[in-house]
């Protein structure tokens, strides 16, 4: 174990993994195909689980292994499986037209990262290897939020929400040395429930408005 710890420190593994997560978010925000968004999410979640494991080794917090396991089970397997089913039912394959084009979205994502890096001093994490994690996590949150704004199809909004949640998870780690297991499990469970409810919700929107285009929802305004 000490050896692995040392490696993590030398190679900056934690930063590497979190940067990977950031990249997967950027990939999602610039991709039009829903299938590739989903893939980006799976990658993002695997990286999150890996990061947890690294934290577990690095800080010797054994209960993070359990959290990592549940992350894999929930975010890498169950949620993607369920979303694929919903997407299949809804027959939505790609985002037709985001409000902003891919290059503009990329620029904005970049600007957000710069903004965050210039304003967050570096979190309260002690170990030198992970000082960037908080900045990255906040960037992930903002980029996912931006993506949600940028998309019209409700399905992509759900994807944005899922990414955002991963970002929040990451932020939680960098601030608290890992939250108690019970809370992590609780959040994970909430997430699952949320995705299921959103799935049902999407199907209902589809039924009521014949489309999952959110512009149609303006007709609900009083």
């Amino acid at each position, binding site marked *: 174990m000490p050896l692995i710890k040392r490696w993590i420190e030398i190679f900056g593994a934690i930063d590497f993994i979190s940067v990977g997560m950031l990249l997967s978010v950027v990939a999602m925000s610039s991709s039009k195909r829903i299938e590739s968004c989903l893939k980006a999410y799976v990658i993002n979640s695997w990286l999150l689980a890996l990061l947890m494991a690294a934290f577990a080794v690095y800080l010797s917090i054994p209960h993070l292994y359990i959290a990592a396991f549940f992350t894999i089970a929930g975010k890498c397997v169950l949620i993607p499986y369920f979303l694929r089913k919903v997407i299949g039912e809804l027959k939505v394959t790609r985002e037709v037209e985001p409000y902003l084009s891919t290059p503009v979205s990329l620029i904005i994502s970049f600007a957000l990262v710069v903004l965050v890096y210039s304003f967050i001093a570096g979190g309260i994490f002690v170990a030198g290897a992970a000082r960037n994690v908080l900045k990255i996590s906040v960037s992930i949150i903002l980029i996912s939020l931006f993506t949600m*704004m940028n998309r019209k199809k409700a399905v992509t909004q759900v994807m944005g929400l899922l990414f955002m949640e991963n970002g929040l998870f990451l932020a939680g780690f960098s601030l608290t040395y890992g939250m108690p297991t019970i809370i992590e499990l609780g959040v994970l469970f909430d997430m699952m429930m949320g995705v299921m409810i959103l799935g049902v919700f999407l199907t209902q929107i589809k039924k009521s408005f014949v489309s999952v285009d959110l512009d149609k929802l303006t007709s609900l*305004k009083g």
Partner: protein
Amino acid sequence: MCESDFYFFIHKEVFGTGILLLISLAFFISGAVFFTVAPKKASLHYCYVLYAAGAGLSAFSFAEALYGGGAPMAFTLQISPALSMGFRSGPLQDFFGLLLSVAAFAASVYSAGYMKNTPAPRFQGLFYGLFILSMGAVFISGDALSFLISWEAMSLVSYFLVVSDTENETSQNAGLTYATMTHIGTSFIIGAFMLAFSATGSLEFTGMAAGLAGKSMALKSAIFILAFIGFGMKAGIFPLHIWLPKAHPAAPSNVSALMSGVMIKAGIYGIMLMCLGVLGGPGAHYSTWWGVVILATGAVSSVMGVLYALMEQDLKRLLAYSSVENIGIILLGTGAAVVFYSFGQTALAGLALAAALYHTMNHAIFKSLLFLGSGSVMHGAHSKNLEEMGGLLKRMPYTGLFFLMGSVAICALPPFNGFVSEWLTFQALILGSSTPPAYTRVITLLGGAALALTGALAAAAFVKAFGVAFLGLPRSGKARQAKEAGFPMTAAMGFLAALCLLLGVAPGFLLRLISALPFEGLKEMGTAAPIHSPVIIAGGFTGFWPAAILVSMLLGLAIILALAGTLGRKRKITYADSWDCGIKALTPRMQYTATAFTKPLRVIFKTLYMPRKEVRISFKLKPLFVSGITYHSDITPFLENYLYRPFTAFVGKAAMKIRHLQSGKLPLYLGYIMLTLIGLLLAWA
């Protein structure tokens, strides 16, 4: 598992009499659960029995805590390392907890019988339990956060209960008014707490009090104004009361009993907590004008409340307006107490405060009793319109007797409990003549004048309510076929009526409990008043002996009956028609109606009421043959017309402008969120 894994649970140990409270909580929760899962509707009344058991237990534990003066109970819900909700009860909290428990006990027993008439028994039963629990949580909250959460829960749950009659449009409208007003009130409360927090850095009330002790008077006054408006809205002080006569009658009667009996006392509790606990406290510096504001508001509320109560033909609305009046009386005492504290006259302040607290408890008891009585009347006569009642005393003897006892008590007539508290209030206000500046002397004495006027008006209002509903001849078929309410309902009312008499005859019980409260000057009140003996106040300024009034009357009765038995032979009693000038055709339509009863007052106070009347004559052949005449008369609700309507019109216009922010497009909303986030980020950095 490390300690942090228990964050969601009770963090610090429970001590004091808290364990009894937890058991009572368990009763409530099990009651609420059974309401949702009970297999048969027929068994639902057992759930109310669970509530009643819980309420009885908590009444015992609160009384024990007050009486024994033991350690206060406390527990903390740790939500996250940084965020916790503290529940701890001191004597003030125990007092209000006791008040809640007593009313909840009676209302729960009553509900076991009453629930048969409600359209959605499961829903109402569940929310009824939650309502009681949330009020309890308000009373024992130890910090601003738990207070606000409980407060909002209380408001929301009661809103659902108000609108539970989904078919009825008036109750939906009432619910809307209620929800709007209560949220405006809550925003003022939040403002007060935020000011206090920003000045002291503490969310806990004890911390706030300690932190505010040395702060500037301007800051304290700002907190006072915000808190007084916010809590006053809930209490139903005069210009802010308009939701009260709409919402309370709309709820089912067992709930209106709790709303009028207990929930508006949460406003009083808030005012006392902020004025006397957080801003005041032993040795603190009070502003005289706070007391004057409270006192003046109390005087106006009491007179206006009862003037409008007089004009009501709807029994439950009459009772609701009378709640405005009684809140006014409580505030008269509270305001006088603040005035006295500001001059350092702690003994007098103790007297005024004891009067206010006594009346708070009294009102909880007799207003619950009267609302429960109105529920029985509606259950028996299927109407809450006084004009359709009459002669109910013969058909509903127990309900009538208990309603009468409640009416006598609320009119502050001896030997019932209302008299004790009004007597104490009178003394406190008269003793206001000993304050140094002339203006407070005049104002406290004018408060006394308002109280005297209120007393006479209340007597007229309740003579009308009881006399028209229960006496005379039935005015409708529904009233003719009225039936007495069932056993648990009459038992609950009887319990409260007995309490009215007990607290009226032996005020020492309650004064002893009140003397346990942590305010200066109350101790003298308590020690001077052992149970059953005369109440003597302010170093012998005056005193009275409530038990002796009753005893002397009973002795006198015994003497009269003995004399009649020994001296005279038995006289014959003939039962015959009432005197009808020989027409021999007396009908119930010839009786005085509720409207007619108060007609002289409508004429006398016409500048206030602005009575409107309209006579419509329809002809068969104009102008000779009249086919019918309709007469319509009502009073102008001038607050609604001249204050609220212009205000809501303005808000409506402003809202139309702001509406452009609402595009209905999800991305825009997400944009708002993102802008907020980035703004926070910038603010943080």
